[in-house]
């Protein structure tokens, strides 16, 4: 039996977010819904990477004055995953902005937000 700690539940939530995001990107027809599903997918990947670094009963990896130096490597959460995720959050915003601009251009050209009509190339 797997113990239901916060880390396990976060992994489950991350897996659900990735599944929901991929299913939304593949099967929803609206382009803006696809964009929202993409942000959900990105959130799921971020959550998986952050919960990898979690230490049960640990502390935030900041060495404060007066803290015990010998306990710090055992108690502190891992820093590598969150360091990458901070970059990924910022890159996700610029990717979303570019996708939104492309959606607006597609709407101006085809007059619809449905991906099936855009792929068929129907002009209005």
């Amino acid at each position, binding site marked *: 039996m797997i113990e239901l700690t916060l880390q396990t539940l976060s992994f489950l939530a991350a897996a659900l977010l990735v599944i929901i995001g991929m299913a939304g990107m593949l099967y929803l027809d*609206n382009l*803006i819904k696809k964009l929202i599903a993409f942000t959900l997918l990105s959130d799921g990947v971020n*959550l998986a990477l952050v919960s990898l*670094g979690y230490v049960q009963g640990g502390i935030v990896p900041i060495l404060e004055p007066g803290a015990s130096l010998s306990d710090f490597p055992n108690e502190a959460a891992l820093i590598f995953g969150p360091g990458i995720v901070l970059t990924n959050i910022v890159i996700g915003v610029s990717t979303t902005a570019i996708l939104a601009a492309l959606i607006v251009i597609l709407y101006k050209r085809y007059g619809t937000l449905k991906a099936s009509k855009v792929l068929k190339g129907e002009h209005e």
Partner: protein
Amino acid sequence: MIDAFMTVAYLMVIGVTIGAVAALLQKDLLRAAYISGAESIALAFLFHALLAPDLGLTQAIVGTVLMPGIIILAILKTRRHEESD
């Protein structure tokens, strides 16, 4: 003793998944953008509970203001409701 902070963190795990499903089920795209912002706030709290408070602050600003803002700008330039046919 039940830790209040961890209890809220467990609730936020549920809130993230429910918010993700609810955002994609909306017919009104503007409301979908708002709900994705609410899901992002729950994710920011979860980052804080997972011992990464710097990511919590970044996600709270970026996911709640910038992401829905960009999506709402795209909706204002196109159309608000999903086409039915």
